[in-house]
């Protein structure tokens, strides 16, 4: 049960679905950490603290027991963990990695995780990104930072160990979450989703 004082930027939005074809929902407050450091240096600590040493290949993830390690760059991983476990994990990592060149930053509130599921989920996403999201090309476990709509974000196909039941997860900076939410609803219209209006998009108040 998460802290009732917290508010996601998508607070007030509820799951939108067009049945089998596509469903869009938020995975609120998933814990997210940026972990920088050479993969070899950090692997033992990772294994110890998350149950996985991280993916072997670029643009992949590894998950175990609801904790996932996503490859973001050659010396950058994201840890995606159950809500409100991130602070402790960050602390543990820092102490476990003391002396090793590394850097841990909590970005839980920076990124909002929006999940997409359904037979047409990839077609919905394809309307927003030039990256190849076809299930054959972007297989379960894969990760990609890319362009989404007029912004940027990270796409992820969580594997079973992640304990996330969406086919795709889009991480988007929180100030753009509402923009993306509405864009996804628009993209899902073809499959029966209803359009949503951006918060603050209804009227523009000018000073004059």
């Amino acid at each position, binding site marked *: 049960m998460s802290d009732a004082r917290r508010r996601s930027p998508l607070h007030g939005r509820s799951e939108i679905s067009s049945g089998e074809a596509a469903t869009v929902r938020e995975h609120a407050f998933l814990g997210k950490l940026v972990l920088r450091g050479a993969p070899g240096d950090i692997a033992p600590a990772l294994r110890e603290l998350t149950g996985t040493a991280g993916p072997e290949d670029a*643009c992949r993830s590894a998950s175990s027991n609801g904790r996932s390690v996503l490859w973001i760059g050659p010396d950058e991983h994201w840890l995606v963990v159950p809500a409100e476990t991130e602070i402790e994990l960050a602390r543990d990592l820092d102490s476990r990695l003391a002396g090793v060149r590394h850097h841990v930053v909590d970005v839980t509130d920076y990124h909002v995780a929006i999940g997409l599921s359904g037979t047409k989920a990839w077609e919905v996403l394809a309307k927003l990104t030039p*990256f190849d999201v076809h299930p054959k090309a972007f297989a379960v476990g894969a990760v990609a*930072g*890319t*362009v989404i709509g007029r912004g940027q974000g990270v796409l992820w196909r969580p594997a079973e160990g992640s304990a996330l039941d969406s086919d795709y997860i889009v991480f988007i900076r929180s100030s753009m979450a509402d923009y993306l939410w509405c864009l996804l609803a628009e993209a899902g219209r073809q499959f029966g989703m209803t359009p949503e209006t951006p918060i603050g998009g209804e009227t523009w108040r000018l000073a004059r």
Partner: protein
Amino acid sequence: MFVITCPYCGERDQAEFVSGGQAHRTRPLNAHEMSDADWGDWVFMRDNPKGIFAERWFHSAGCRRWFNALRNTATDQFLAFYPMGEAPPAVEAVLPATPAGEAPIGSGNDAVKVMRPGESEGTTT
């Protein structure tokens, strides 16, 4: 729309990248000793070749790493991608016969849209 091969993430759409201009320009360590002319050269002057150009790209939407590329600016064909700090590899390119001219294929500009008799058919790569 280019396909850019990030040395870390692989082939991606150009939209994910930011172009960083000329590569292999090392910031001088002795700026205070430099003349206005030398300093001005470093800050402002740029190679701007029609032909093989070593340039930098930033995988802004992806891994956020900077890296280098060789591209033929006469045709926009990428010839190589390589990490920061590495020297440019040797490459071959379809270059213009004259400094300001057009590459025999690939620029799509004037004068090279039609083959001359005797020019052999096929594909270039």
